[in-house]
């Protein structure tokens, strides 16, 4: 009894504790990958979509709604030029969002998109988006920010309405103000 050596079991248990602590942090990238693959959570891909699937399907019409919201405490004016658009799947559309910095100093903002219903996010292809980059505006300046997109023709048949919501965050404090980022 007294001669039983506890050390091997103790080491294995301590190792499990460390592994599980690491697993907690591993959940962060796992979650991102999982959401990107399945498209749940309404996260759209943060990269330029190719044009190869942009074959218009004139048989179907999808309604796309555009929402915009500055984060709490974010002073910018931020709104879409059109709030509602009827599109055919595969048809490339270009819309603009208006942004204006009413303060006296330069600020940097980052827009984060969210698509509802979440499963539509996989089929919402953005060829150009102001959300791909941070946006810098001098005090008092305004900007029409472009969004070029098409809805993938493979969109499940039960989805007729897609809502695209942007939240605009103030990231001036987060990153030092860099030279104007290109939005091409």
């Amino acid at each position, binding site marked *: 009894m007294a001669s039983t050596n*506890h050390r091997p*079991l103790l080491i294995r*248990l301590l190792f499990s504790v460390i592994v599980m602590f690491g697993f907690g942090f591993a959940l962060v990238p796992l979650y991102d990958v999982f959401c990107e693959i399945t498209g749940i*959570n309404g*996260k759209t891909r943060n990269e330029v979509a190719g044009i190869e699937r942009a074959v218009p399907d004139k048989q179907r019409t999808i309604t796309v709604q555009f929402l915009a919201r500055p984060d709490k405490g974010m002073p910018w004016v931020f709104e879409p030029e059109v709030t509602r658009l009827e599109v055919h799947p595969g048809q490339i559309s270009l819309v603009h969002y208006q942004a204006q910095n009413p303060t006296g100093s330069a600020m940097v903002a980052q827009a*984060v998109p969210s698509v509802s219903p979440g499963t539509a996010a996989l089929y919402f292809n953005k060829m150009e988006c102001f959300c791909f980059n941070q946006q810098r505006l001098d005090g008092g300046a305004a900007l029409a920010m472009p969004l070029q997109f098409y809805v993938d023709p493979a969109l499940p048949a039960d989805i007729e309405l897609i809502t695209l919501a942007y939240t605009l965050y*103030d990231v001036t404090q987060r990153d030092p103000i860099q030279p104007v980022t290109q939005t091409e």
Partner: protein
Amino acid sequence: MSIVTSGHHADEHHHSAPPAGFKRWLYTTNHKDIGTMYLLFALAMFFIGGAMAMVIRAELFQPGLQLVDPNFFNQMTTVHGLIMVFGAVMPAFTGLANWLIPMMIGAPDMALPRMNNWSFWILPFAFSILLMSLFMEGGGPAFGWTFYAPLSTTYSNDSTALFVFSVHIMGISSIMGAINVIVTIFNMRAPGMKWMKMPLFVWTWLITAFLLIAVMPVLAGVVTMVLTDKYFGTSFFDAAGGGDPVLFQHIFWFFGHPEVYIMILPAFGIISSIVPTFARKPLFGYASMVYATSSIALLSFLVWAHHMFTTGMPVFAELFFMYCTMLIAVPTGVKVFNWVATMWRGAMTFEIPMMFAIAFIVLFTIGGFSGLMLAITPADFQYHDTYFVVAHFHYVLVTGAVFSIIAAAYYWLPKWTGYMYNETLARWHFWCSLISVNVLFFPMHFVGLAGMPRRIPDYALQFADFNALISIGGFAFGLSQLLFLLVVYKCVQGGEKASAQVWEGAEGLEWQLSSPPPYHSFTTPPEVK
């Protein structure tokens, strides 16, 4: 009988008597001392957390804002939850594990006695830090015990740092306690104590300890992320920097759901010890109890998102988590069935531990049923964040976990102290608790179904009558627990001498030791037939 004397012999030549005074408790590595300290600590925390519940119920006695301002009300709900979960229920179970596991498996002590000392003595510091944060400028944590981001990151004050450190310390304490339990059970069972001969309290604690090792580090991870998001510019849960606040809920509930089973599995072990004693029949379905406990533990890792049905998950995920959650009702039902079958045609007597155990079975089952209602995704959209949820988890945690701890205290108190408790006072304690706890929590179902939100210091006028009734039940339940304090105090002081077996139907190694057991027991392992 021979076991008891052999313990005494070893005592004489091997160990000196414990040092007197405070140093005995500070330096002790004895599982009985540490178990006692854990239990007393949990009792103290139960009253501190209970006092906070009394503040909550006093404020909610009438609609409108009377006694405390909303920010303080939020601190009370937050710290009440944290103290009851991490300060009362978990240390009480660890205390019971310390006292009972070595005696039940015929071991002289816990496997890692010095670590045992540490895992207790860091706890008072953790809770001092948490309680002191209430006196900071701006008050203590007010974001709910679930500390959802961004409430705990963007919208919290600097007491969050103290909150995070205290949770870290509580987590380290639980992990050390769990490691100790596992090593003790694996390495120190008496010869002949095979796996499927272990008492169910030992089994359920072994499974609980594995759950603790699996999820407490995840809790440590998520509080660390909250800390770095708040103070070091990371964006785990901040959408502006590419993070996601919903991710917080996923990580938290990946810890949080196994955590609720950590708080109930040892209770199953306690009830499975008490019911056979007073029914004077062996436990019905021992093996199925072990398998049911294991499957509950495994399923607990697959159901976390049922706390998050309203976060906008896709339908297939909601269905997956709904069905997995309902599946847990099967092993839980097996357990309830086994307890009832154990009592069936038994020669039952109704001593206080048995009364609490029967109350546990009935009331925990009510809590289980409201849990099933909450598991139904479309219904949960109605019930989410209402008092129905409060009613549900108080039925499983107060009339579940806490009642089982009280039952355990009454059951083993004569063994620990050597004296019988005062039967009359104990009966008063039982009946006052039973009635008041139902006056307290049952009407919460109704106000919850009618739409009263939780964690709000004010409410619509139509809920006034029920809330007054709930508050009266709350005060009565709080006061009833003072009777328990009195019973324990008197029992420690003296009373009718308890025999070694204490209860006529009690079986197990701990009942072969004298009451109270010698300071060092089973220094020579007993023979297990």
